[in-house]
C-alpha cells in the first residue's frame, strides 16, 4: 500500500505547479456601480461577495482566513472587514478562524507562502484563505486565493500541490463616500506629535487606573489601585497619598492575575475602588485636611463607571475577567467574559468598549457599533486634541510585544501610534488642565517585575 502511495505522490509531484484555477461556479465578484455607500455598507458588501465565492468553491472546513491591508491606511478597514467575513463563513458552517500571517511575498521572504500554510496547518485548518484589501481612489478591492493546506504524510518534504479546491477570490466595490485616500500627515513642523513622559515606577502590579479631580483644583489626579493600596498621583507623577487596603479581608478565592476597578461618582466626589484580592471594595472621599483619600464605606461588588454613571459588574471568580452581565444604559451588555471595559460619555453620546480574552473588541460609539479583531488589554477613550471627539487608544494584542505599541484610532483622522517598552496592560484618560485636552496614562509591566506609569500627550511643535 505504501508503495502505491509513494507512486501517487511521485506522479503528483512530477506534475509540477498547478496553476491557480478559478472557481468553477461563477459567483459575482462585483456589484454594478451605484451611489457610494457608507464604509460599513461597503465592507458588508465585500464580505457578502467574498462569502459567495468561497462557498462556491466548497472548501473543506475548518478555514483559516488571513486578511491583510495592501497599505497601512487600509488597516482599520481590514480589521473591520475580517469579523464581518468570519461571521458569514461561520453562518455557512465553514468553521473559520482568523489567521495573522504575512502573505505579501514581494515584501516578505521567499518562503512566506509556506509559512502561512504551516501556520494554518498548526491552527488545525484544512483550507487557507489569503486576502488583501486595497483601497484605491474610488474603488475598494479585495483579492486573494483559497487553497487546501492538508498534506499527505507520505509526501514527505516533496512539493506536491495540496488536495482540495483551489480558487482565486476577488471582490470590488465603489469606495464609500468620504473615504477617498486620506492624506498622510505631512511631517513638517506645526503638526501635533505624541510625547511620552515617565511619571513613576511601582514595585506592585497595577490592577486598575482611574482619574478624577479629587482635590478640586481643576486638574485630574491619577488613581492607581494595586493589591496593597490605592495611590494618588498628580499629573506630574508626584505621589500625593496612599490609602492601604489592609482593613479589607482577603478575597476567599484568589486570582493569579488579579484585576481591579476604579469608578468615580460626582458631587460630592467619591472614589469607588475594588481589588480582586479583597473580599470587599471601598468608597473613598478626599480629606482636605489630611490631603489624602479616606474610606467612608464599603462596596460589595466592583463598579464600572464613567462621567458620573456607574454600573455593578462582577469579576469571574479566580480569573482575570469580568463576568457576563446585562447592565443599564449606556453600558449595555457584557456579552461574554471581558478582559477590559472602558466607557466615556461625550456630548454626542456614549462611547463604550469591551475587550474579550481572544483579542476581539466590541466598540460602541455614537457613530455606530464596530468590531475590532486584535487589540490588547489596555483600552481607553481619550480626547488628545480637545476637539470633542475621543480617540480610542489600544495596546498591542501580542502576548509579549517588543516594544508594545499604543494605537490611537478615530473616525476622523488616520491612526497614530507610539511605541513604549514593556507591556501596556491598563490605560486611563487624564484631564491635564481646564479645558478639553486630555493625556493618556499607561501602566506598563516591565520585564524585571516592576511597573511604570507613563503619560502620553499631544504636543504641537
Amino acid at each position, binding site marked *: 500500500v505504501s508503495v502505491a502511495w509513494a507512486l501517487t505522490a511521485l506522479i503528483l509531484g512530477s506534475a509540477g505547479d498547478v496553476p491557480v484555477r478559478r472557481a468553477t461556479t461563477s459567483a459575482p465578484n462585483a456589484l454594478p456601480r451605484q451611489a457610494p455607500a457608507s464604509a460599513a455598507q461597503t465592507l458588508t458588501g465585500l464580505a457578502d461577495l467574498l462569502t459567495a465565492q468561497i462557498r462556491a468553491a466548497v472548501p473543506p472546513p475548518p478555514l483559516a482566513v488571513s486578511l491583510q491591508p495592501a497599505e497601512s491606511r487600509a488597516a482599520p478597514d481590514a480589521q473591520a472587514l475580517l469579523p464581518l467575513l468570519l461571521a458569514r463563513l461561520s453562518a455557512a458552517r465553514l468553521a473559520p478562524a482568523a489567521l495573522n500571517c504575512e502573505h505579501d511575498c514581494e515584501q516578505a521572504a521567499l518562503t512566506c507562502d509556506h509559512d502561512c500554510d504551516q501556520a494554518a496547518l498548526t491552527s488545525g485548518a484544512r483550507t487557507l484563505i489569503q486576502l488583501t484589501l486595497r483601497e484605491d481612489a474610488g474603488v475598494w478591492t479585495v483579492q486573494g486565493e483559497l487553497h487546501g493546506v492538508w498534506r499527505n504524510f507520505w509526501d514527505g518534504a516533496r512539493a506536491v500541490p495540496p488536495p482540495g479546491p483551489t480558487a482565486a477570490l476577488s471582490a470590488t466595490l465603489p469606495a464609500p463616500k468620504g473615504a477617498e485616500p486620506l492624506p498622510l500627515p505631512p511631517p513638517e513642523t506645526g503638526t501635533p506629535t505624541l510625547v511620552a513622559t515617565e511619571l513613576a515606577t511601582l514595585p506592585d502590579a497595577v490592577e486598575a487606573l482611574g482619574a478624577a479631580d479629587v482635590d478640586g483644583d481643576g486638574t485630574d489626579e491619577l488613581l492607581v489601585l*494595586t493589591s496593597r493600596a490605592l495611590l494618588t498621583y498628580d499629573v506630574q507623577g508626584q505621589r500625593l497619598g496612599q490609602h492601604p487596603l489592609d482593613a479589607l479581608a482577603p478575597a476567599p478565592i484568589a486570582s493569579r492575575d488579579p484585576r481591579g476597578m476604579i469608578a468615580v461618582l460626582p458631587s460630592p466626589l467619591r472614589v469607588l475602588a475594588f481589588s480582586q484580592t479583597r473580599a470587599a471594595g471601598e468608597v473613598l472621599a478626599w480629606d482636605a485636611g489630611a490631603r489624602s483619600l479616606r474610606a467612608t464605606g464599603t462596596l460589595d461588588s466592583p463598579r464600572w463607571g464613567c462621567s458620573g454613571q456607574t454600573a455593578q459588574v462582577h469579576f469571574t471568580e479566580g480569573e482575570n475577567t469580568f463576568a457576563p452581565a446585562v447592565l443599564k444604559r449606556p453600558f449595555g451588555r457584557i456579552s461574554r467574559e471581558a478582559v477590559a471595559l472602558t466607557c466615556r460619555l461625550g456630548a454626542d453620546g456614549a462611547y463604550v468598549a469591551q475587550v474579550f480574552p481572544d483579542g476581539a473588541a466590541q466598540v460602541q460609539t455614537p457613530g455606530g457599533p464596530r468590531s475590532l479583531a486584535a487589540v490588547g488589554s489596555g483600552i481607553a477613550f481619550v480626547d488628545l486634541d480637545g476637539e470633542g471627539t475621543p480617540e480610542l487608544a489600544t495596546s498591542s494584542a501580542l502576548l509579549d510585544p517588543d516594544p508594545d505599541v499604543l494605537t490611537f484610532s478615530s473616525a476622523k483622522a488616520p491612526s497614530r501610534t507610539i511605541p513604549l517598552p514593556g*507591556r501596556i496592560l491598563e490605560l486611563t484618560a487624564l484631564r491635564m488642565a481646564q479645558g478639553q485636552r486630555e493625556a493618556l496614562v499607561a501602566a506598563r509591566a516591565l520585564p524585571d517585575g516592576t511597573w511604570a506609569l507613563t503619560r502620553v500627550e499631544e504636543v504641537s511643535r
Partner: protein
Amino acid sequence: MSRLPSLCALLSALSLGSPALAASRASFGGSVTVAHAGVAVPPDPALADAPADAALRALDTTGLCRDTPEGLTLGLARSMTRSSPDQLEITLADGLQSRKGAPLTALDVVTAWDRLFRGSPYRALFAPIRGGEAGLRAASVGRDRLQLPLAFPWPDLERSLCHPALAITVPAGFGARTGVGPFTLASPGHFRAALGFPAGRPFLDRLAVETTDARGAARAFALSRAQVELDGEAGVEGPRRFATYLLFREDRTGPGFRARVEASLDRSDLVRLFVRGPAAPLSALLPGAPAPTTPTPLANPPRGQSLTLLYDGSLPSQRPVAERIALKLHDRGYDVRLQGLERAALRERWASGDYELMLQSILLPAEAGPALAVALELGGQHARLAQELPAIGALPDDGEREALALSRAGALTASSQAIPLYVQGVRLKKGPRVAGGNLDALGVPDLSTLFLLHDAQLAPPGGP
C-alpha cells in the same frame, strides 16, 4: 540589621504572586497534555526530586512557597515573616483541604517535614532550627501558625523551605498520602484545576500527563497529541541543580579510594557520552565552587577487591554511568558489581549506611548555603553542619553568603565521602500555542502557570 535586606526581599516577593503578564493578558481555560519521558512519579515529594518529577509532583502536591528567580512566590503559606531575627513565623492560607477533604493544619506541615528526618538528605535544610528535630516538632502554634526558632542567623531559611522535597503531604488512609496543589487528580494522568488554590487557580482547566519513553514523548509532541514535552531533545533550559554524587564508605573501600576514582574518571567524557539531557560536569560539592586539587593515587592498588555499586534504576542516566564507573574502577583493581534499586530503597540504604558504593542524585537548593548543607549531609558530614553554617548565615549580604558557601564547598569536597560527578537540568518544550510554565530558581518548571494563546496573541511569522 541582618534581617532588613531579606525582609525587603520578602516583601517585594510577596507582590509577585502572579507571573508578569503581557500586553494582552493570559486567558484562563483549555487543556494541555504534557508528554514526559520517564517512569511514574513517586508519590513522596522527597523522592520525586528529579526536576521533571518535581514539576509533575507539584501539580497536586505543593509546599509553602516557590523559589523563583524573581523572588519568593507563596503557595500554601499566607505569610512568612521574621517576628525577630532568630524566629520565622509562618501562617498557612485559609481553608486548605487535602483531596480527601481533611483540613491541612500547621501540625500536618510539621509532621510532613518530620518524615524527612528518617532517611532523607533534605533534613539538612532544617539544620539551622534550634533543637533540631525536637525544635521542628514543637513549631506548630495553633491551627495555622508555625514558629521556627533559629539556632543561628540563617537568612536563606524562607527560600530553602520552598524546596520541592518539602512539599506537604497528609495521610490519606491505607498508608497513602495526598497533598494540596493547583490541580487535583481526577483520574490517573488527568488533572483538574483546583479552583480554591491559595495562589489562585491555574490558568488551565485540565492538564493531562502522558508518561512514556523519550521516543514516545517526541512523537506525541510532533503529532500535537502533547503540547508540552518534558525532558525532550530541545526546549527551554533553566539552572542545573540536580546533582549526582558517587558515595563511598571509606571503611569498606579501603584507603585511597577517592584518589583512584579521581585519577580514572573523566567527568566531561561521562557527561558527553552517558548522561541524558542538559548536564555539566561537577567537580566540587556544589556547582560554581572551586575544584579541589586532585590527590595522587597510592602506588599499590588493591587486587580484586569486590565492591557493590548501588544505583537508581528509575533515572535513565545512572545505569550507563554506573557501568562506566565499574569499568574504570576495574582498571584500578576493583571488582565492581552493579545493583539497581528503587529510589526509596536507595535512600533507605543511604540512611542506614548499608552500602559500599552508591550513586545518589539530589536536587540542590538554589542558594549556596542550604545547598552546602544538603551536600554535606549527603556526604556523611552531618557533624560539620553545626560548624560551617553559622559563619555563612552570619553574613547579611546574599552575595557574600554565596561566595563563602561556595569556597567552603570547594574546601570540604576532599574530606566528603561524596565524589561529585555531574549536574543535570530539565528541558521544557512548549508548542506554539502554549506559554508560561517558567522554570524556577531550582530549574523546576512551574506547570501551573501554563496557559494557552489565542490567535491574536501570537506574533506574526517573520515579524520582529
